[in-house]
C-alpha cells in the first residue's frame, strides 16, 4: 500500500496529462498549472520557513562533534565544534554541500589487510549524486528562460556533456540522477529496516522525480519535441505574456514533464522535501558552541516556583546548627 498508492497516483497524473491534451486543455497544462504550482511553491516555501522561524530557539543546543574551545593550548575543532560564526558557516556549508553528517557513515576498516568500506557509503554517494545532479539539471534548464545564455550556464552545460556522445549531446547528469533515484528507491524496497520505516510520502516524490527525469530524457533523446516552441513558451511565461498559439505545437511528452514538475513544486512545501529549507534552521547544527561565553536568551523564559534557601533552612535549621553548619537566622 505504501508503495502502490503513490505509484498509482503518479500514473494517474500522467494519464491526466494525456487526457487533457486530448481535450485541448493546453492553456491549463501549459500556463495555468505551471503558474499556480510556482505560486504555491514560492508562497508555501516562504510560509513554512516563516512558520518554523516563528517558533523561537529557547536553548542553545548544538550537537558538538569535536573538541570545544577551552584552554588556549588545547586544540579546538573549529568546524565540528565551532565557537565563531565563521566556524558555523563552514560547518553548515559542509553539511549542505557535502552531506558531512551522512558521510560519517562511511567507515573504513582494515580487514585481512585490505581497506573495506561499510555498505553505508552508498547512501551518502547516492544522496550526493542525486541532489547535485538535480541542481545542475535545474540550472541547465535556465537557458530556456533567457534570451542570451550566460557563460556560466554554457560552461555547466559544456561540462555536463563533455563526453561528447550522441546527438543531441548526452548529459551525464541525466544518467546519474536516474541511477541515484533508482538506487534510493531500491534501497527502500530491499533493505527490511528501511522498508519498515518508509511511508507513502517517501515513495511519492521518488516516483514523481523518476517520472520527471524519464519524460525529460525521452523528450531530449527519443521523442523529439518542438524545442524552439518550448523556449518561446518559457520566455512567454517569464514575461507573463505566454503565446497561446505555440502551446498546441509542442509534443504531449513535454506536458507530462511540465505537469509532473508542477506537481512536485506544488507538493514541495507540504512535504518532507522541505528539508531543503529546514536544514538551514536546524538548531543542533547552526549554533556555535559558546553557551558558557555568551548568554543565550529564551524569549519565553518565565519565573518558576522554587524551593528557596530560606525555606530549606527553616526545614533543617536545628540539624544544621547541631552539625556546625552556618545558618542565616539563629
Amino acid at each position, binding site marked *: 500500500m505504501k508503495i502502490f498508492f503513490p505509484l498509482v497516483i503518479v500514473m494517474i497524473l500522467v494519464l491526466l496529462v494525456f487526457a487533457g491534451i486530448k481535450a485541448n486543455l493546453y492553456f491549463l497544462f501549459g500556463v495555468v498549472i505551471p503558474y499556480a504550482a510556482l505560486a504555491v511553491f514560492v508562497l508555501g516555501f516562504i510560509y513554512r520557513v516563516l512558520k518554523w522561524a516563528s517558533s523561537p530557539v529557547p536553548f542553545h543546543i548544538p550537537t558538538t562533534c569535536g573538541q570545544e574551545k577551552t584552554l588556549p593550548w588545547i586544540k579546538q575543532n573549529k568546524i565540528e565544534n565551532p565557537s565563531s560564526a565563521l566556524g558555523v558557516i563552514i560547518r553548515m556549508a559542509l553539511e549542505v554541500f557535502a552531506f558531512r553528517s551522512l558521510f560519517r*557513515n562511511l567507515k573504513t576498516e582494515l580487514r585481512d589487510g585490505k581497506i573495506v568500506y561499510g555498505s553505508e557509503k552508498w547512501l551518502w554517494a547516492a544522496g550526493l549524486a542525486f541532489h547535485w545532479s538535480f541542481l545542475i539539471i535545474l540550472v541547465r534548464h535556465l537557458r530556456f528562460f533567457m534570451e542570451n545564455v550566460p557563460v556560466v550556464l554554457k560552461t555547466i552545460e559544456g561540462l555536463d556533456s563533455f563526453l561528447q556522445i550522441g546527438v543531441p549531446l548526452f548529459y551525464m547528469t541525466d544518467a546519474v540522477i536516474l541511477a541515484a533515484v533508482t538506487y534510493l528507491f531500491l534501497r527502500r524496497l530491499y533493505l527490511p529496516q528501511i522498508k*519498515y520505516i518508509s511511508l*507513502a510520502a517517501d515513495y511519492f516524490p521518488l516516483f514523481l522525480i523518476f517520472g520527471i527525469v524519464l519524460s525529460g530524457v525521452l523528450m531530449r533523446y527519443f521523442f523529439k519535441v518542438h524545442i524552439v516552441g518550448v523556449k518561446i513558451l518559457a520566455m512567454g511565461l517569464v514575461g507573463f505574456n505566454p503565446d497561446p498559439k505555440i502551446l498546441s505545437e509542442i509534443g504531449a511528452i513535454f506536458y507530462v514533464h511540465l505537469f509532473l514538475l508542477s506537481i512536485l513544486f506544488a507538493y514541495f512545501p507540504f512535504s518532507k522535501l522541505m528539508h531543503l529549507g529546514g536544514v538551514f534552521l536546524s538548531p543542533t547544527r547552526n549554533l556555535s558552541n559558546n553557551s558558557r561565553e555568551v548568554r543565550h536568551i529564551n524569549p519565553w523564559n518565565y519565573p518558576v516556583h522554587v524551593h528557596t534557601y530560606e525555606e530549606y533552612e527553616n526545614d533543617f535549621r536545628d540539624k544544621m546548627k547541631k552539625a556546625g553548619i552556618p545558618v542565616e537566622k539563629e
Partner: protein
Amino acid sequence: MAKLPKPEELSKIDLKPPKTDWMDTPVEFKEDMYCWGAKGKNLKVVEFPNARDWSPKEEDWKLPENWKEIVMEAFGDRLSKYRSFKLFMDICVRCGACADKCHFFIGGGDPKNMPVLRAELMRSVYRKHFTTGGKIFGKTAGARELTLNVLKEWWYYYYQCTECRRCSVFCPYGIDTAEITMMGREFLNLLGLNIDWIAGPVANCYMKGNHLGLEPHTIKNSIEFFLDDIENITGIKIEPTFNRKGAEILFVTPSGDLFADPGTYTAMGYLMLFHELGLDYTWSTYASEGGNFGFFTSNEMGKRLNSKIYAEAKRLGVKWILGGECGHMWRVLHQYMDTWNGPADFLEVPKSPITGTVFENAKATKMVHIAEFTADLIKHGKLKLDPRRNDHLKVTFHDSCNTSRGMGILEEPRYIIKNVCKNFYEMPENTIREYTFCCGSGTGLNASENMALRMRGGLPRANAVKYVHDNHGVNMLANICAIDRATLKSAMEYWVPDVQVCGIHELVANALVMKGEKERTLDLRLEPLPGKAEKEGNE
C-alpha cells in the same frame, strides 16, 4: 507454566513479528525492560498534576478523563515554543542513517528503538493533529490518532531513550532524538506518568537539595567520613567547609559521588586535590546536587532544580563556581543554566587562583569544569604527581554522551589521565569521542527493575571495553560522569567482569604527592599500592 514446545518449534524459532506495519504492532511491555511508575507522593512534592500511584503493568493507568486534550494542548504549545521540535517533526526524510546508531537497538534489536522510528511514534500523531495532509489522508500519510495504546507506546519507548544524541551526530539535518524524547516525557509528566526512579530523586532534590535526599548534617557527615579514610591513607587531616560565606569558589558535584562506590573515591579525590592546592572553596548543602533529574522530567522542573546553584552562589558571595565530573549535569550547566537562571552578573569571570588562568570560555556562565581546571594545573606544573602509583592500572577512557556531544570536552580528561598514569589505551575510534556509546542507563533509567534494558544498552560500550581488555589488558574504565560510575560498574560486572570503573580525579588523587603526607601504601580504595603489598609481605 509455559506450554511445552513441540520439537520442531524448539529447533526453529521464528520470532519475526507478524508482517504488520509498525503502526499496527501494539506495544508489548516486556519484563525487565521498563521502570516502575511514579508514586503520587513524589509528584505531589513538586506540585505536579495528576499525582497518583499507578503501575505500568496494570491495564488501567488511572488517567484523567481529558488526558488526550491535555496532551494535544501541550503538543501545540511546545510546537510554538521550540523550533527544534517543530522542525524535527517536519523534515525527517527517513533515510535510515540513524537507524543502527542507537545503543538500545544495537544491543536489543527492537525496531522501535531505531531513532527514526522512536521519533515517528510522535510524528505520526503530529501529522494527524497538526498537518492538513495527515488529517485528510490518515494512515497513508503516516498519520494516526493518539490512542491509549499510542500513549503507552510513548511511555515505553521514551523511557527507553537516554537522550544521548548519538543519532543526531549522523543525521544529515541534525535531528536530535533527545529533543523529541524530552517532549515525550514532558507530555507524559502532565498526566503523572513519570517513572519513580526519576520522580523520587526530583522530589528529594527539590526539598533537600540533592537526589539522594541527604539532609544538611548528613552531607557533612558523609564527607567527614571520607576524611577519615584520607587520613588513613595520607596521614593528612583535611577540613573542608560547608555553606561558608565569602569563599572564593562554590563547588558543586553530583550527590551520587558522596554515596555510592566507586563514585566516592572520586569525591575523595576532589577533597585531596583542593586541600593540596589550599583552595578557598566551600561545599553547599542547599545546592548539593549537580545532576538534574528534573531535566529528564520537564523543562520547568529542570529549571526549578537548577535554580539552586546560582541562588546559593549569590547568597554565599562566591566569585565563581567549579563543577565536578558529571555528564548530564554538564549538559545542563553548559547549554541551559545561564538561559534558565542567569545572568550570573553577581559573579566574576572564573580565574584559577593557582595558575592565574582566566577561563574566557566560561565568562558568562561563570562555571568551570573540573577537568578544565585540573588540566590547567597540570599544564602549569602546579601538581606534584607520581604516576607510578597507578601502575597496576591499565586505563581506558569512556566519553560521556553529554560532555562529548553536548559540550565537547574531549582532550582535557585524556590529558589528565596521561599525566597521572602510564598505561592508557583508547577504545576503537567509532566508539569514543563524539561517537561514544552511552552507558545504557542515562536519563534516569539507572533503576534495577529494568536491568535487561540496561544491559542491552550497555552492550555496545562494554563490547568496546572488552576489546581493549582482551588486547591490552585494560582493567580500569575511567570516565567523567557519576551515572557512568554507578552504572558502568554493573555493565562491566555482567559483560567484562575484570574491569573496574573510576572517575579521573580518583586517579589524580592516587598520583598526587601531597605536602607532608606519609609514605602511601594504600590507594583510595584502601587496597595496596603496586609494589607495596609484596614489600609488606616480605617483611
